[in-house]
């Protein structure tokens, strides 16, 4: 079974790399934001440490684009092409397919975060590596919530609608999610409404600030993960 899942993960990654728009969305946009907002004064930031603000935000953005936008679009189309149905009825099995998809998303996220983090370091960002563990923890929570929402959308909407909705949410989050500009100050409620802003803030607190993550952010991202994964598990459709 391990070989079977490994082969499927490989196929998922090969196919992702093959789709140009997915790669641009996942790497190109965050890279542009990092260099544009991080190195120039193109946008107003609530701090003088531009890289300390922008780089964690960009890392959070790339997690969202892979776990949510990319996953929603591919899953929607794979469902409509009958791929989920056919692979689920192979020796790979349905749990195997879900496991392979999750692993493929995690592998992508690790590579993207490493690459963008490295670019950040090259241009002058100095992360607090001692706070890597809570940062990784909050990232797993965020990715889980995004995946749940992605699978839910892909199950209840047509693939074209899923693509539109997922892209729209990506753009909305990019504008108000506290990546290039400060997020709107909505207090604690903001973390529950804008998971991207919450995740970005958590990464800033730990990696740039060397501090701890506020409980409200843990709760917000935890709630997103529980709510969307539960909804996805109830509504997921193989065909």
């Amino acid at each position, binding site marked *: 079974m391990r070989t079977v899942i490994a082969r499927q993960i490989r196929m998922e990654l090969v196919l992702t790399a093959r789709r140009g728009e997915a790669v641009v969305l996942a790497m190109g946009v965050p890279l542009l934001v990092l260099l544009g907002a991080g190195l120039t004064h193109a946008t107003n930031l609530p701090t003088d440490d531009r890289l300390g603000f922008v780089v964690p935000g960009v890392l959070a953005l790339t997690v969202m684009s892979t776990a949510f936008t990319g996953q929603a679009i591919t899953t929607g189309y794979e469902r409509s*092409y009958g791929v989920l149905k*056919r692979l689920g009825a*192979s*020796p790979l*099995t349905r749990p195997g397919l879900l496991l392979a998809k999750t692993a493929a998303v995690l592998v992508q996220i690790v590579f993207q975060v490493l690459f963008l983090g490295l670019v950040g370091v090259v241009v002058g960002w100095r992360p607090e590596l001692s706070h890597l563990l809570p940062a990784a923890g909050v990232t797993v929570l965020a990715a889980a919530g995004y995946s749940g929402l992605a699978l839910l959308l892909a199950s209840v909407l047509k693939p074209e609608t899923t693509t539109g909705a997922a892209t729209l949410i990506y753009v909305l989050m990019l504008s108000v999610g506290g990546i290039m500009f400060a997020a709107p100050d909505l207090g604690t409620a903001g973390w529950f409404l804008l998971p991207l802003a919450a995740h970005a803030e958590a990464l800033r607190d730990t990696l740039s600030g060397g501090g701890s993550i506020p409980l409200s952010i843990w709760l917000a991202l935890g709630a997103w993960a529980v709510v969307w994964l539960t909804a996805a598990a109830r509504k997921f459709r193989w*065909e």
Partner: protein
Amino acid sequence: MVGGDVAAVEVRDVVVRYGDTTAVDGVSLSAPRGRVLALLGHNGAGKTSLLQVCEGFRKPDAGTVRILGMDPVAEHDALMPRLGIMLQSGGVYPWAAAGEILRLFASFAANPLDTEMLIDRLGLRAVEKTRFRRLSGGEQQRLSLAVALVGRPELVFLDEPTAGMDTEARHTTWQLIEELRADGVSVLLTTHLLDEAERLADDVVIMRSGQVAATGTPAELTAAAGIDLLEVRADPGLDLTGLKARHEVAESSPGEYAITGALDTRALADVLGWFAGVDAHVTALSSRRRTLEDVYLSLTRQTTTTVGAAK
């Protein structure tokens, strides 16, 4: 794990509903191991819905399904490695190359067939590196068939396997299915091609409006009605009153008598006996036996009456 005496497919009183529509309405059928069973019927007769239930894609709304002795929903994961499934369309990543997909499915199997042999046999060598969405309809079908067979399944479900194929590919497919049977593999296929059913199937199930209209071997189905047209050449202008009382008869042209209806041996003797009785000189006889197509058309056209051959 499962003895050879367990049926490949055992369906009992299965009902499948989509909202208010009943797609499969109390179907029972049994397919022994190592045989080819063809589900025949118009579009919308319930063939694909029945197949979906057998493949474990959905639970029947009523009735039971056993595939190789197993429940295709509850024992899905244990059953799947033993099945080969060809969907009516799709099921493949559009961006993956034909050869890539076949090798992926081969890598899932414990003891796969030689993928190179399958690629050559199914004429996919030239498009081996072509992405699925760029393949023609027939090429996509052939790849799906290869994917269904690569894991050496014990039972294969083929949903309209030759739809969209050219004549050559169709014959290759038929040959492959005959080889599968020779290897002891069970095959359940749907088709609305009568020549396909007549050539391949050991057993035929004709479905109409979600129900089984008739089952049997092609020979049984066509023989059930015996001869359905007897033409007799004899003296012109015979008084047919006596014969008309027992058979449907007409003098289609002077001296040409056409007797229609389901004519078994006894009926034929009766007809010829009548000609002998009126001292007619019979100079020619010709008969037409019903083809599977006639049986199929007469069954699928009827909407209310129960058919004699139905179970």
